[in-house]
Protein backbone atom coordinates (compact mmCIF):
# COMPACT_ATOMS: atom_id res chain seq x y z
CA UNK A 1 0.00 0.00 0.00
CA UNK A 2 1.19 3.48 -0.81
CA UNK A 3 -0.28 6.63 0.60
CA UNK A 4 0.54 10.12 -0.55
CA UNK A 5 -0.95 13.53 -1.10
CA UNK A 6 -1.65 14.62 -4.63
CA UNK A 7 -2.88 18.19 -4.95
CA UNK A 8 -6.20 18.29 -3.14
CA UNK A 9 -6.49 14.57 -2.55
CA UNK A 10 -5.03 11.82 -0.46
CA UNK A 11 -4.27 8.88 -2.70
CA UNK A 12 -4.06 5.39 -1.28
CA UNK A 13 -2.77 3.17 -4.03
CA UNK A 14 -1.64 -0.44 -4.32
CA UNK A 15 -4.36 -1.37 -1.85
CA UNK A 16 -4.34 -5.14 -1.51
CA UNK A 17 -7.69 -6.92 -1.09
CA UNK A 18 -7.21 -7.35 2.65
CA UNK A 19 -6.64 -3.66 3.39
CA UNK A 20 -9.34 -2.70 0.87
CA UNK A 21 -11.73 -4.91 2.81
CA UNK A 22 -10.74 -3.24 6.10
CA UNK A 23 -11.54 0.12 4.52
CA UNK A 24 -14.90 -1.17 3.32
CA UNK A 25 -15.59 -2.18 6.92
CA UNK A 26 -15.35 1.41 8.22
CA UNK A 27 -19.06 2.30 7.87
CA UNK A 28 -20.28 -0.92 9.48
CA UNK A 29 -17.73 -0.54 12.26
CA UNK A 30 -19.10 2.88 13.24
CA UNK A 31 -22.39 1.32 14.32
CA UNK A 32 -22.57 1.02 18.13
CA UNK A 33 -26.00 -0.69 18.10
CA UNK A 34 -26.17 -3.72 20.32
CA UNK A 35 -23.00 -2.80 22.20
CA UNK A 36 -24.02 -0.68 25.20
CA UNK A 37 -20.40 0.18 26.06
CA UNK A 38 -19.87 1.52 22.55
CA UNK A 39 -23.15 3.46 22.55
CA UNK A 40 -22.18 4.98 25.90
CA UNK A 41 -18.75 5.94 24.61
CA UNK A 42 -20.01 7.51 21.37
CA UNK A 43 -22.77 9.39 23.21
CA UNK A 44 -20.99 10.07 26.47
CA UNK A 45 -22.78 12.09 29.18
CA UNK A 46 -22.09 15.85 29.32
CA UNK A 47 -21.54 15.89 33.09
CA UNK A 48 -20.03 13.55 35.63
CA UNK A 49 -23.50 12.43 36.63
CA UNK A 50 -24.51 15.03 39.21
CA UNK A 51 -26.46 17.26 36.86
CA UNK A 52 -29.40 15.07 35.92
CA UNK A 53 -31.36 17.93 34.37
CA UNK A 54 -28.52 18.78 32.00
CA UNK A 55 -28.13 15.10 31.08
CA UNK A 56 -31.85 14.78 30.32
CA UNK A 57 -31.85 17.90 28.12
CA UNK A 58 -28.70 16.65 26.42
CA UNK A 59 -30.35 13.39 25.46
CA UNK A 60 -33.33 15.23 24.11
CA UNK A 61 -31.70 18.02 22.15
CA UNK A 62 -27.99 17.42 21.63
CA UNK A 63 -27.76 13.68 21.01
CA UNK A 64 -29.97 13.76 17.92
CA UNK A 65 -27.71 16.51 16.51
CA UNK A 66 -24.62 14.43 17.22
CA UNK A 67 -26.25 11.38 15.68
CA UNK A 68 -26.91 13.37 12.50
CA UNK A 69 -23.35 14.69 12.45
CA UNK A 70 -21.86 11.20 12.77
CA UNK A 71 -24.27 9.82 10.18
CA UNK A 72 -23.36 12.52 7.67
CA UNK A 73 -19.64 11.82 8.13
CA UNK A 74 -20.20 8.10 7.62
CA UNK A 75 -22.27 8.71 4.48
CA UNK A 76 -19.44 10.77 2.98
CA UNK A 77 -17.04 7.90 3.62
CA UNK A 78 -19.49 5.40 2.13
CA UNK A 79 -19.65 7.49 -1.05
CA UNK A 80 -15.84 7.67 -1.31
CA UNK A 81 -15.53 3.94 -0.72
CA UNK A 82 -17.60 3.30 -3.85
CA UNK A 83 -14.27 3.65 -5.67
CA UNK A 84 -13.28 0.28 -4.25
CA UNK A 85 -16.25 -1.42 -5.88
CA UNK A 86 -14.99 -1.15 -9.45
CA UNK A 87 -15.03 -3.77 -12.14
CA UNK A 88 -11.43 -4.81 -11.69
CA UNK A 89 -10.62 -8.41 -10.81
CA UNK A 90 -11.59 -9.32 -7.29
CA UNK A 91 -8.01 -9.74 -6.14
CA UNK A 92 -6.52 -6.79 -8.00
CA UNK A 93 -4.98 -3.96 -6.05
CA UNK A 94 -7.12 -0.83 -5.86
CA UNK A 95 -6.67 2.91 -5.50
CA UNK A 96 -8.72 5.17 -3.27
CA UNK A 97 -8.73 8.94 -3.53
CA UNK A 98 -10.02 11.06 -0.66
CA UNK A 99 -10.71 14.70 -1.53
CA UNK A 100 -9.34 17.19 1.00
CA UNK A 101 -12.85 18.53 1.62
CA UNK A 102 -13.81 15.07 2.90
CA UNK A 103 -10.91 14.88 5.34
CA UNK A 104 -12.99 15.91 8.37
CA UNK A 105 -15.66 13.32 7.57
CA UNK A 106 -12.99 10.63 7.29
CA UNK A 107 -11.37 11.64 10.57
CA UNK A 108 -14.76 11.50 12.26
CA UNK A 109 -15.84 8.17 10.80
CA UNK A 110 -12.46 6.58 11.49
CA UNK A 111 -12.68 7.81 15.06
CA UNK A 112 -16.20 6.46 15.48
CA UNK A 113 -15.06 3.08 14.15
CA UNK A 114 -11.98 2.95 16.39
CA UNK A 115 -13.98 3.87 19.50
CA UNK A 116 -16.76 1.39 18.77
CA UNK A 117 -14.35 -1.48 18.08
CA UNK A 118 -12.24 -0.66 21.15
CA UNK A 119 -15.35 -0.53 23.34
CA UNK A 120 -16.69 -3.75 21.85
CA UNK A 121 -13.51 -5.71 22.57
CA UNK A 122 -12.59 -3.76 25.72
CA UNK A 123 -8.99 -3.40 24.58
CA UNK A 124 -6.56 -2.55 27.33
CA UNK A 125 -4.13 0.38 27.13
CA UNK A 126 -1.34 -2.15 26.62
CA UNK A 127 -3.10 -3.76 23.68
CA UNK A 128 -3.89 -0.41 22.09
CA UNK A 129 -0.24 0.60 22.17
CA UNK A 130 0.89 -2.70 20.67
CA UNK A 131 1.33 -1.62 17.06
CA UNK A 132 3.05 -4.77 15.92
CA UNK A 133 0.62 -7.52 16.82
CA UNK A 134 -0.23 -9.74 13.89
CA UNK A 135 -3.81 -9.55 12.63
CA UNK A 136 -3.71 -13.30 12.13
CA UNK A 137 -4.72 -15.32 15.13
CA UNK A 138 -8.14 -14.37 16.36
CA UNK A 139 -11.00 -12.03 15.64
CA UNK A 140 -9.73 -9.93 18.54
CA UNK A 141 -6.27 -9.60 16.97
CA UNK A 142 -7.83 -8.65 13.65
CA UNK A 143 -9.98 -5.99 15.34
CA UNK A 144 -6.94 -4.58 17.13
CA UNK A 145 -5.14 -4.40 13.80
CA UNK A 146 -8.20 -2.63 12.38
CA UNK A 147 -8.06 -0.02 15.17
CA UNK A 148 -4.36 0.57 14.53
CA UNK A 149 -4.77 0.69 10.74
CA UNK A 150 -7.54 3.27 11.05
CA UNK A 151 -5.32 5.19 13.47
CA UNK A 152 -2.52 5.19 10.93
CA UNK A 153 -4.90 6.64 8.33
CA UNK A 154 -6.06 9.27 10.80
CA UNK A 155 -2.45 10.28 11.48
CA UNK A 156 -1.77 10.64 7.77
CA UNK A 157 -4.92 12.65 7.14
CA UNK A 158 -4.14 14.89 10.12
CA UNK A 159 -0.65 15.54 8.85
CA UNK A 160 -1.94 16.43 5.42
CA UNK A 161 -4.82 18.43 6.85
CA UNK A 162 -2.25 20.58 8.66
CA UNK A 163 -0.61 21.17 5.31
CA UNK A 164 -3.91 22.09 3.64
CA UNK A 165 -4.84 24.48 6.45
CA UNK A 166 -1.49 26.21 6.15
CA UNK A 167 -1.79 26.64 2.40
CA UNK A 168 -1.01 24.88 -0.86
CA UNK A 169 1.68 22.25 -0.87
CA UNK A 170 5.06 23.12 -2.28
Amino acid sequence: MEICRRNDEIEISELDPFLAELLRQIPASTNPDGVPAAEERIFSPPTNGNETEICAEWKLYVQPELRRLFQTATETVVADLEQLNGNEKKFANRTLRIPSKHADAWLNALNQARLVIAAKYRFTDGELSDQFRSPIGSRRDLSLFQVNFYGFLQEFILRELGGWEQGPSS
Partner: protein
Amino acid sequence: MDKGVAITLFPAWKNAGPSTVDKPTIEKETRSKEDLDLPWQVVVHNDPVNLMSYVTMVFQRVFGYPREKAERHMLEVHHGGRSILWSGMRERAELYVQQLHGYLLLATLEKTG
Protein backbone atom coordinates in the same frame (compact mmCIF):
# COMPACT_ATOMS: atom_id res chain seq x y z
CA MET B 1 -25.36 39.67 39.82
CA ASP B 2 -28.55 40.12 37.82
CA LYS B 3 -31.77 39.06 39.39
CA GLY B 4 -34.47 37.47 37.30
CA VAL B 5 -37.99 38.58 38.18
CA ALA B 6 -41.04 36.55 37.28
CA ILE B 7 -44.49 38.03 37.93
CA THR B 8 -47.44 35.68 37.97
CA LEU B 9 -50.98 37.01 37.77
CA PHE B 10 -53.91 35.02 39.08
CA PRO B 11 -57.06 36.98 38.13
CA ALA B 12 -60.12 35.80 40.03
CA TRP B 13 -62.46 36.53 37.10
CA LYS B 14 -63.91 33.06 36.97
CA ASN B 15 -65.90 33.44 40.20
CA ALA B 16 -66.64 37.12 39.92
CA GLY B 17 -70.20 38.35 39.50
CA PRO B 18 -71.11 40.88 36.86
CA SER B 19 -70.67 43.89 39.15
CA THR B 20 -67.69 42.86 41.23
CA VAL B 21 -64.14 42.67 40.12
CA ASP B 22 -61.69 41.13 42.51
CA LYS B 23 -58.29 42.60 42.77
CA PRO B 24 -55.83 40.38 41.01
CA THR B 25 -53.39 38.59 43.23
CA ILE B 26 -49.88 39.42 42.28
CA GLU B 27 -47.22 37.00 43.27
CA LYS B 28 -43.68 38.07 42.89
CA GLU B 29 -41.15 35.39 42.37
CA THR B 30 -37.58 36.45 42.50
CA ARG B 31 -35.16 33.92 41.20
CA SER B 32 -31.49 34.39 41.47
CA LYS B 33 -29.54 33.71 38.33
CA GLU B 34 -26.55 32.73 40.38
CA ASP B 35 -27.07 29.09 39.54
CA LEU B 36 -26.81 29.90 35.88
CA ASP B 37 -24.02 32.44 36.14
CA LEU B 38 -21.57 30.57 38.31
CA PRO B 39 -18.47 29.73 36.33
CA TRP B 40 -18.54 26.31 34.73
CA GLN B 41 -15.54 24.36 33.60
CA VAL B 42 -15.08 22.43 30.40
CA VAL B 43 -13.09 19.33 31.30
CA VAL B 44 -11.61 16.84 28.85
CA HIS B 45 -10.86 13.35 30.13
CA ASN B 46 -8.25 10.85 29.03
CA ASP B 47 -9.17 8.28 26.44
CA PRO B 48 -6.65 5.68 25.26
CA VAL B 49 -8.17 5.49 21.77
CA ASN B 50 -8.09 9.08 20.56
CA LEU B 51 -4.77 10.00 18.97
CA MET B 52 -2.68 12.70 20.62
CA SER B 53 -2.34 14.60 17.35
CA TYR B 54 -6.11 14.44 16.85
CA VAL B 55 -6.83 15.78 20.35
CA THR B 56 -4.37 18.64 19.79
CA MET B 57 -6.08 19.54 16.51
CA VAL B 58 -9.50 19.52 18.19
CA PHE B 59 -8.33 21.88 20.95
CA GLN B 60 -6.91 24.24 18.35
CA ARG B 61 -10.13 24.22 16.36
CA VAL B 62 -12.68 24.39 19.17
CA PHE B 63 -10.93 26.88 21.45
CA GLY B 64 -8.73 28.62 18.91
CA TYR B 65 -5.67 27.83 21.02
CA PRO B 66 -2.22 28.07 19.47
CA ARG B 67 -0.56 24.72 18.87
CA GLU B 68 1.72 24.95 21.94
CA LYS B 69 -1.17 25.62 24.31
CA ALA B 70 -3.29 22.91 22.72
CA GLU B 71 -0.43 20.44 23.11
CA ARG B 72 0.06 21.42 26.76
CA HIS B 73 -3.59 20.62 27.47
CA MET B 74 -3.41 17.41 25.46
CA LEU B 75 -0.40 16.26 27.50
CA GLU B 76 -2.17 17.20 30.72
CA VAL B 77 -5.08 14.99 29.67
CA HIS B 78 -2.72 12.21 28.65
CA HIS B 79 -0.60 12.20 31.82
CA GLY B 80 -3.00 13.57 34.43
CA GLY B 81 -6.24 12.04 33.16
CA ARG B 82 -8.02 15.36 32.70
CA SER B 83 -7.53 18.99 31.83
CA ILE B 84 -9.67 22.08 32.32
CA LEU B 85 -9.87 23.63 28.87
CA TRP B 86 -12.08 26.59 29.56
CA SER B 87 -14.22 28.14 32.27
CA GLY B 88 -17.04 30.66 32.08
CA MET B 89 -20.77 30.91 31.58
CA ARG B 90 -22.80 27.72 31.40
CA GLU B 91 -24.30 28.34 27.98
CA ARG B 92 -20.91 28.72 26.32
CA ALA B 93 -19.51 25.79 28.28
CA GLU B 94 -22.36 23.59 27.00
CA LEU B 95 -21.61 24.68 23.46
CA TYR B 96 -17.94 23.76 23.85
CA VAL B 97 -18.80 20.36 25.29
CA GLN B 98 -21.19 19.74 22.42
CA GLN B 99 -18.46 20.60 19.92
CA LEU B 100 -15.99 18.34 21.72
CA HIS B 101 -18.50 15.48 21.67
CA GLY B 102 -18.92 16.12 17.96
CA TYR B 103 -15.22 15.31 17.68
CA LEU B 104 -15.83 12.26 19.93
CA LEU B 105 -13.72 13.50 22.82
CA LEU B 106 -14.68 12.62 26.38
CA ALA B 107 -15.70 16.01 27.73
CA THR B 108 -17.87 17.19 30.60
CA LEU B 109 -18.98 20.47 32.07
CA GLU B 110 -18.54 20.90 35.79
CA LYS B 111 -19.62 23.60 38.17
CA THR B 112 -16.70 25.32 39.89
CA GLY B 113 -16.40 25.44 43.64
